[in-house]
């Protein structure tokens, strides 16, 4: 077991899958010579050559379109969107083509593409380098969406995504790239898509979250333990499909649910999680389902103090958890 960073987990997952399967290739802006703006594909060009690590023009619609077409012909492309914010020109390709081709062709065609997209703020990236666009794709049947929080989950889920027969959007929290490190086994493994994980066992409140905010919740839970509040923390890991069973089991454990995510509140993943709980287990609830999310404003501000205000952090999560525990 080696301790590696979130970013290194991505890189090693791609490298190992490219070694394992010749059909796997990488394309995106600056993924080759530069190795990606964050370095996620560093060294891949040297190892696999430019036919398998392709620098593309600045056209996300083309990156997604080429990847989707290649996938439909049996390749296993990994398309990198430099920032999730830039995905919007590719939404037509992703939503109208990739997500629907299996259904549209009655199983004759499939599209095993992985679209990697660094999302989330906290890096002073401002408007166009900080967005959380998961809710744009979240309500689209036919897409799988994952958003892991730890290097172990990153590597396992990325491998699972590459091997998956259908399109997977892989949201990586860019703030986690260097910040989060963790133990990852040397052997080959996958983390199944669609399975949440309990990151901490507790009895007073249940926090359901994903991405960077998992770490805020874990830090807050450790501090709240000293106040006698025991927190149960569920990391969704996969947003589509949601692990309904794990959500309901986690919610039933304490009857008090706090959903935390960085994406804004309205129409977010939390709304769906909340709806599932209230549909299925009203009589297990001991408190209103709470949500702590990014504010419903158009985008991340560029001014550092305002970004700080906008972003969730450990203290905000802790405050919300405490409030729910006291209810």
């Amino acid at each position: 077991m080696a301790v590696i960073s979130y970013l290194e987990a991505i890189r090693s997952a791609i490298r190992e899958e490219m070694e394992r399967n010749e059909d796997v290739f990488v394309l995106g802006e600056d993924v080759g010579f530069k190795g990606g703006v964050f370095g996620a594909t560093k060294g891949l060009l040297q190892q696999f050559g430019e036919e398998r690590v392709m620098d593309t023009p600045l056209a996300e619609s083309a990156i997604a379109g080429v990847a989707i077409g290649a996938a439909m012909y049996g390749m296993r492309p990994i398309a990198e969107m430099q920032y999730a914010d830039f995905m919007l020109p590719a939404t037509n390709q992703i939503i109208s083509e990739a997500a629907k081709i299996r259904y549209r062709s009655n199983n004759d065609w499939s599209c095993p593409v992985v679209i990697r997209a660094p999302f989330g703020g906290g890096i002073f990236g401002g408007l166009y380098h900080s967005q959380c666009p998961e809710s744009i794709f979240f309500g689209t049947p036919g897409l799988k969406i994952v958003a892991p929080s730890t290097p172990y989950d990153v590597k396992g889920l990325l491998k699972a995504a590459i091997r998956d027969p259908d399109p997977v959007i892989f949201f990586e929290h860019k703030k986690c790239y260097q910040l989060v490190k963790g133990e990852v086994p040397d052997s080959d493994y996958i983390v199944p898509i669609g399975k949440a994980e309990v990151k901490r066992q507790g009895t007073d409140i249940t926090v359901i979250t994903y991405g960077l905010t998992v770490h805020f919740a874990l830090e807050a839970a450790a501090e709240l333990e000293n106040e006698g509040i025991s927190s149960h923390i569920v990391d969704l890991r996969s947003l589509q499909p949601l692990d309904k069973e794990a959500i309901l089991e986690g919610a039933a454990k304490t009857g008090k649910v706090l959903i935390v995510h960085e994406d804004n509140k309205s129409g977010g993943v939390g709304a769906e999680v909340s709806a599932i709980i209230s549909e299925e287990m009203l009589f297990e609830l001991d408190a209103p389902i709470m949500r702590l999310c990014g504010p419903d404003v158009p985008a991340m501000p560029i001014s550092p103090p305002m970004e700080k205000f906008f972003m969730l952090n450990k203290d905000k999560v802790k405050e919300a958890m405490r409030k729910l525990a006291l209810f």
Partner: protein
Amino acid sequence: MKQTKANGTEIVVPQLAESLVSATISKWLKQPGDEVREYEAICELITDKVNAELPSPVEGTLKQILVTEGQTVEVGTAICIIEETGRERPEQEEPAESPVTRGTGVDGYDGSGAENRSHRYSPAVLKLAAEHGVDLKMLKGSGLGGRITRKDVLQYVQDGKPEGQQPDAVRNVSPASAAAVATEAVHVPVRSTGLHLTEHPPIPKIELEGEAEEGRGEYLIDVTPIRNTIASRTRQSVSEIPHAWTMIEVDVTNLVQLRNSLKDEFKRKEGINLTYLSFLLKAVVNAIKDYPIMNSVWAVDKIIVKRDINISLLVGTEDFVLTPVIKKADQKNIAGLAREIDELARKARAGKLSLSDTEGGTFTVNNTGSFGSILSYPIINYPQAAILTFESIVKRPVVIQDMIAVRSMVNLCLSLDHRILDGVICGRFLQRVKENLESYGPDTKLY
């Protein structure tokens, strides 16, 4: 920046670039005791992304260096302390953490003016109380405003209720097993309500991956590009061109004799077969010369008559058919036509036709006799005006001058574009072809 020390401002490593989490101090540009102006560089930083000088955010005197050169620290770590000058130390900025403590529920209020919630029960509390026969009035709530929480009920059940409260159903349950029941209740996770709103509506039967539908007695063939071209061309021809059809029979007995007498020597000399098709082509080309309207194209408001006679041949395999073109067929003799037919047919079957080999056809001949047909209804090779088929040569009894003779007969079928051509002109054309074919004899020249 934080005011912590009583006598200075802590200077921290700023977020210099996206995704940066740490930085290394490469060199201190100021030493303790040095005066520092606002925005003046105090040290050099090395990071994964950028190397930069760190400007001082305040004016004052550098009091203490907290991080030595070469050390790597996380973003936000204090690296030195500067005592500010000319300014009074501001008040402590950070508000004291709000003193929230766990509500004791002693009097039903949490002290913050919240309403009394001791009689507001959550669904979970009511459910647990009913399950365990708990009288909620006996409990003290620990929640907000004295609210009885789910945990309060579970604790109450686990601790053992006072005697005389248990209803019949659970009267004999010991506290330990009651606790077990409680724990179990916690773990029964999914759906205890009667409303199953999320069940999927009935959907029509669709084929699932890996589960082939039973009794499916068919298989699929991918349409190749050439198949696709044939499909669209024939469809275009049939839907755009009003086809008419006619047929004549020709006595080719003399031609058969002629060919039989020449073919072996020809094969030896030229290395290729002397085919009936080459004789037919010559006959057709000469007939077209007499009736040039056969060599034309419909252009809506006019008819384009082509000067060159380029004959398209149909060369078939089991999977597809190609149309190589003999260019300027009117300038070739029978031997030259035979050579060209041989070459184009070989190229077509080997898939080696170039684009120019298939362009420019003005009239099409199809040797349908080669696969045994005696009658066919050809589709015009769009956008030409007509197509002629050369059927099988068969020996038949024919009446000649009121006598029956055995003759070698062949049918020629013609499909025509009725926008350009009518029965009379086509009849004359076919008659000319017939005359040409029947006039072959022992003195016909191949060269």
